[in-house]
């Protein structure tokens, strides 16, 4: 089963972005970007099943 983990191997040296005092790996940047996208999507996308719910007093 060890071949599975090597479909897209990530165990060689990482790439880093260096800007002034900031030093961040591309892996972390991708994860942070996905979190921001998820947050914005959670704000903007309509609530699922909105039509099926009925408000009751």
């Amino acid at each position, binding site marked *: 089963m060890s071949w599975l983990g090597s479909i897209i191997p990530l*165990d060689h040296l*990482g790439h880093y972005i260096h800007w002034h005092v900031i030093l961040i790996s591309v892996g972390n940047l991708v994860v942070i970007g996905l979190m921001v996208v998820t947050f914005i999507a959670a*704000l903007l996308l309509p609530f699922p099943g*909105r039509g099926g719910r009925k408000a009751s007093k």
Partner: protein
Amino acid sequence: MSKKAFRPDVDAPTWRGGHSPYDIIKEGTIALVVVGVLTVLLSVFFGSPDEAAVTVKKWANANPIDFATTAANELNGTSLTAGYGPPYNHAAIGQKLGPLSLAKWAGVRIPINPVSDFVIKPLESMPSQPVLQQNLAMWSSASSSTQSGWVTDYVKAVPKMTFVNGHVVVPTTNAGPVSVLVDNLTQMARSGALDQALVTGGGYYTTDYTKPLLFLADGTYLAGLAANQHLTGTQWGMMNETGQYPGQAWLWLYTFWYQIRPYSASTNADVLVWGTMMALSAVLLFLPLIPGLRAIPRKVKVYRLIWREHYQQ
């Protein structure tokens, strides 16, 4: 009866509109299944970080000169561990926050004598080594000033150290048994026996790697590997992972302080960063009680975006 004034950033008006049913079990199950499937798929495609452990054996085989130099520094009392202070020894006050000597107050809870724990005791555990036993006896019977003189002579010659035919060679004139001790410790380390001697000190089933880790950290080999993988403190290492894997991105604020002054230039950076994070955590914890800060959600009005259908009506 007098009515209390409505405070907009503290009080919430009573909801008098309709209510919708909400199935938290259904929602939780969906979240669990989605996260579970994502975890399996990501691990199938990308694997997981599986860097082999760095051992003293690896270090001594990869760079015997660095290992032998570090061993000499341990004997000389000039290694990082030897001068660290609490919790390992009394050589320094340790981390302090202004006038508060926090590390000193916590005390020496893991006493480590580098000369004895890293060099002499492991060598004493080596069986059937008559030459080594003679030199160990010579070391033990000498006064501390004589030992110090031998080590000083050896350390002076360390820059000319070479590694020839599997042995550490140092051109010393009056180093007594130190040359034999350091060479034997290097042989022991290269065979893997030193890892065993340093780790198994606490019992049969032990997971206490304090001693081999401190010894490794005193040399330059481990630091070089860490720097190569961007794992050191000055490289935001706390939030990085080996290879190309994403790391602990949520530790960005903790490791950020280490990159800027005065933290980056302070010998008490660890406790200063800890103190800063504790103060910020307290602000977060008591946010509902802090005027101004607690009004931010009301003034930013993100809630109007989330519940836009309601506010459109």
